[in-house]
């Protein structure tokens, strides 16, 4: 499953990034690394971009970028820190 398929208030854990080069760097710089929890905060009116909570910050990603982030869902919860 990829991050763009996650719906509002659902959270998940990143398992990998299917992109290379600057896009990959950018996502990693924003804190999206394997093991990181992500939660959908809200979607813009047209559904793209979507705001996600990552490590305590809210970031917005386009659908195209989010589709390169592979995730596993963990049900509902508050995103933030990596699992211990």
């Amino acid at each position: 499953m990829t991050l763009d398929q996650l719906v509002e208030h659902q959270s998940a854990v990143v398992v990998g990034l299917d992109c290379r080069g600057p896009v990959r760097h950018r996502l990693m710089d924003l804190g999206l690394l394997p093991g990181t929890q992500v939660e959908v905060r809200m979607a813009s009116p047209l559904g793209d971009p979507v705001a996600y909570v990552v490590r305590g910050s809210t970031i917005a990603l386009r659908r195209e970028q989010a589709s390169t982030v592979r995730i596993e869902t963990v049900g509902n919860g508050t995103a933030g820190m990596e699992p211990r």
Partner: protein
Amino acid sequence: MTAPQPVPQPMEPGCASCTVRHGAGHGTAPRGLFRLGALGGGHHAVVALAGNPNTGKSTLFNTLTGLRQHVGNWAGKTVSRSEGSFRFNGRKYKVVDLPGTYSLLSSSTDEEIARDALVFGRPDVTIVVVDATRLERNLNLTLQVLEITDRVVVALNLIDEARRHGIAVDDRHLARELGVPVVATAAQRGEGITELLDAVERVATGEPATRARRLTYPDPEVDRAVRRLEAQLGRLLPHLPARRWVALRLLEGDPGVERALRDGTLARLATRATSEGSGVVGATGSEVVA
């Protein structure tokens, strides 16, 4: 003790009436600090301010220099670097406020400016301003800066806000882990500034020498390759600063750094960094590596 009057700065028309500019700590200067505004001239050391966007770099800059650089919360506010100065314990420092970035890996002009200033400008001390309420996220840039230089002080800023959120940060443990001083600050209220400047002074005078945490790579092959590249770079460009950092970028296939090596930009910047010595923040916006 009262601060000398800040040197008036030309201001855009809208700025005078804007409320955000009154936010910075322009009250009484913290103990031992004399703000010198935009005064130029000789200085003992150059201090660069690096950090993620929105961590209070510009507020700290204003607190230190008495200038009123626009403080605000939007992307790319500090479009290039701005400079000011202050005196602390009899030493004069030049401060350079760099654009806020999440990274130094050349994906935007902001990152290039910040990166080139740190690599080729070789500031005597770099203050990495981190947001104490989002520490984990801020440590990425911190570690990247530590890959370039050991002479770092971490300002654990917005500590008042962290306290309000019930977040306590073990700054001593963090300092041990990072290998550089960590000082809790609330730049807007002037909290921790004297302690921060004490740490800056110690790093500037090289006593005791800081030993920054370097990331190691689990694969010994990577380490070997880095060392080999480092040695080659050393032969090719003896004056190149932050050789290990450049080697890592080349291994990674960073197109900007590769191009800079090929077309001689790197050689030019390396020579300039030595001829001007410390005190000049190397590349300008027109000549960036990437």
